[in-house]
């Protein structure tokens, strides 16, 4: 509980972060930037889990566990993504989205 801060304000903050992440995910043209936007989205939701846990169900810890899992998965995902990006860069010397459309064929 943060004194004087209601759950609404925290949700407002996370929502804003979430949509900033989405905006970035759609508009950025670079794979790493997309990865960054993804982190924003993940963090926004992780905060939500924690906040809901704290404000509404203080007796249990599920929200916290989920946040930990999110962080773990994010770490794994980032590691893989970075590996892919580097490999891609080796192949086509670019990490721009427009150059990787070849996948759709």
């Amino acid at each position, binding site marked *: *509980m*943060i*004194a*004087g*801060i209601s*759950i*609404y304000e925290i*949700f407002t*903050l996370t*929502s*804003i*972060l979430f*949509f900033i992440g*989405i*905006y*970035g995910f*759609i*508009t*950025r*043209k*670079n794979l*790493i*930037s997309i*990865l*960054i936007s993804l*982190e*924003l989205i993940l*963090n926004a939701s992780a*905060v939500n889990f*924690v*906040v809901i846990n*704290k*404000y*509404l*169900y*203080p*007796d*249990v*810890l599920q929200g*916290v*566990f989920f*946040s*930990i*899992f999110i*962080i*773990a*998965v*994010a*770490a*794994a995902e*980032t*590691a*893989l993504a*970075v*590996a892919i*990006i*580097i490999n891609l*860069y*080796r192949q086509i010397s670019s*990490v721009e989205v427009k150059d990787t459309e070849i996948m759709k064929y």
Partner: protein
Amino acid sequence: MEKILFYILALIMIVAAIASVTSRKMLRSVIYLLFVLIGVAGIYFLIDYNFLAAVQLTVYAGGIIVLVIFSVLLVHHIEMELEMAKLSKKIITAIACLVGLGVFLATIYSTNFNVVENSKTTTVEDIGRGLLSYDAGGFILPFEVISVLLLAAMIGAIIIGKGDKLTKNDDTL
């Protein structure tokens, strides 16, 4: 005091997040993200989840950001300006996001949350017991799964990062 702290944090996070998705310099974008992540850790501190905040700081700010910075440095020149999306696309996306945000907020503010006043402090022990508990409601299985996932991701990252043999002589290396 905490209220002011929260507002400061929130302001930093939003500004940093916006800067992060709009900056045309890759590295700066990552650093702005770092601010956001630290802000998130701050919120965890504020609501008294100290362990979580610590994990956030070490894994995210310490691990992931460094990983990303490495990859940025590997594939980018520092001065390189990022290509931006078309204005029309930006506007459409922005509109969609704003409308979506509106929907979210409207929904949130119209919902009556059943807030339980408390000032319970969660210790690391509580978390450890919860995670490793075999009892009903225990999280041992997901915990194990996550460990395996991390292992798999690690191996996968190495395999992928190592690259294909065929591409070894590629002049792009």
